């Protein structure tokens, strides 16, 4: 946070960040919010995110006191859910850090709780009364952003393009943004356009891969209804997978663990339950794709061997 200390002293930026060539490796520090699902069920997302962060000079600080974001608990009790989010905001605030999250759902829950705390004095008082036994205070000082948004805003597709080490051109992918990356619009301060999103397309294009547009681009993965109705969740995810069946894409690129669980982990189950032929369509998390383009080891650095269905055949051309 804060301005560039070199610029403040009139010293030329050695990394060329000020000239838009390299990027600044100083002061880019974020509290990493892992959430419940990623570290347990999709550790390759965390692995790849940490690798690209190191490569790009973004410092991700681990704060062990953070816990679940509360996005499911609002179903039972809205205020309890907000309190859980506020607890996490307070921990990061304590360290003077803005937060970066990997999961769309966590990003939404935390950003929305912050928005409400800022705009609703009564709620803020209630939350701080409840947080005080834990020795925490939440003012909603720092923003919460998704990792992809941080990549887009703090580094930018243009700079990413200048760092490529592997040629991925020729691959074609279907981007999936995920609902909570875009909505509610007010909470995200107008970042991207919920009805016609572009940022993930641009981030993908920066890696040299071409990102298609397709009819069900905006369709929800259904992950949040999985615990209560497998039929609804699978039918929703099935709609998008069917749409992509004859689009000749090499893989889906997405940026959320819940979406990955639907389109990747459950892909086979979905085809089976809906009585459809298998898809065998690999699903990559965006940091895995960026990592590939930046020259990371696909297995040791990005955990591609852990993805279902396996994307390893995509890599044949590099060996």
């Amino acid at each position: 946070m804060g301005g560039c200390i070199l610029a403040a002293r009139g010293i030329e930026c050695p990394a060329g960040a000020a000239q838009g060539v390299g990027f600044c490796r100083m002061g880019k520090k974020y509290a990493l919010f892992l959430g419940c699902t990623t570290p347990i069920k999709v550790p390759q997302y965390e692995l790849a995110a940490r690798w690209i962060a190191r490569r790009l000079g973004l410092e991700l600080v681990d704060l062990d006191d953070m816990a679940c974001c509360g996005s499911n608990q609002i179903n039972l009790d809205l205020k309890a859910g907000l309190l859980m989010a506020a607890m996490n905001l307070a921990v990061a605030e304590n360290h003077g850090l803005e937060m970066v999250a990997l999961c769309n759902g966590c990003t939404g829950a935390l950003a929305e709780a912050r928005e409400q705390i800022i705009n609703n004095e009564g709620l803020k008082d209630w939350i701080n009364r409840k947080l005080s036994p834990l020795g925490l205070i939440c003012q909603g000082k720092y923003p919460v952003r998704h990792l992809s948004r941080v990549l887009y805003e703090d580094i930018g597709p243009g700079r990413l393009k200048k760092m490529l080490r592997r040629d991925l051109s020729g691959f074609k992918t279907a981007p999936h943004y995920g609902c909570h990356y875009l909505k509610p619009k007010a909470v995200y301060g107008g970042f991207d356009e919920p009805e016609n999103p572009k940022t993930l397309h641009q981030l993908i294009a920066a890696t040299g891969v071409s990102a298609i547009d397709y009819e069900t681009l905006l369709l929800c993965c259904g992950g949040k209804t999985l615990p209560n109705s497998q039929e609804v969740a699978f039918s929703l995810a099935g709609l998008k997978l069917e749409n992509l069946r004859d689009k000749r894409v090499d893989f889906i690129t997405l940026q959320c663990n819940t979406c990955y669980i639907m389109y990747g982990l459950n892909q086979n189950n979905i085809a089976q339950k809906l009585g459809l032929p298998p898809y065998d369509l690999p699903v990559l998390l965006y940091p895995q794709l960026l990592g590939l383009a930046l020259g990371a080891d696909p297995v040791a650095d990005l955990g591609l061997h852990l993805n279902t269905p396996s994307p390893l055949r995509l890599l044949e051309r590099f060996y």
Partner: protein
Amino acid sequence: MALLAKGAAGKGESRSFPCLTALLAKGAADTQSIKNYSKRYNYIKLKDIIKDKKYNQRNIKEKIIMLSEPSSGEPLSDLPIKVSGLDRNFRFKVAASYPLAQELNACLTCGTCSAGCPVHRVFPEYDPMKMLRMIHLGMQEELFHSDYIWYCATCRTCEQRCPQGVKFFDILNVVKNLAAQAGYAPSAWISQLEQLRQTGAVFPTEDTWVARRRELSLRPLKNNGERMSRLLSEAGL
């Protein structure tokens, strides 16, 4: 106040796809049976989207992804509503429960929310505008008893597109909260609460993933169960 789980509802795994499976099992799903079917249920034709070779071979020109009524829980009734005896104050109770639910009464019944709702698309019985009308009419009991209120995928397309700024997502959350207080919380959410009290995360700790994190040299996760228990009891859950 401790929340109680509702009977067997919410156990997604145990559900099957009775009607869809039946249709597909016929292998044929001839046009007539689809037509008969559509008399009873709305359905979605995906012929523009789906060009599935295997099914074309079987002479099916169009295929349907659709859902039957869920195998448990009470569907929303189609009978005329008797307005007397309903709690006309229910909507005020909902609107007062949460700042973002206040715009409840601004609804024009234009149906934009339902038209854009992905759950409505695959499961037409789930209908945001219909549920809003039920709230307006005071059909509290019907809503509380219904499994449908728990099917929202939380995508927020309804509020994104509503011309009146009605936040159906938040309004439905208020209804779910009230249903939970009245003892209708689905077991899936209740067991997540139990889990949170133990580890601070919604999944149980399993040896396999602990080992996998170690293999990947990812740092071990801290157990925040105690902290979370305190927080949840502060919140009255």
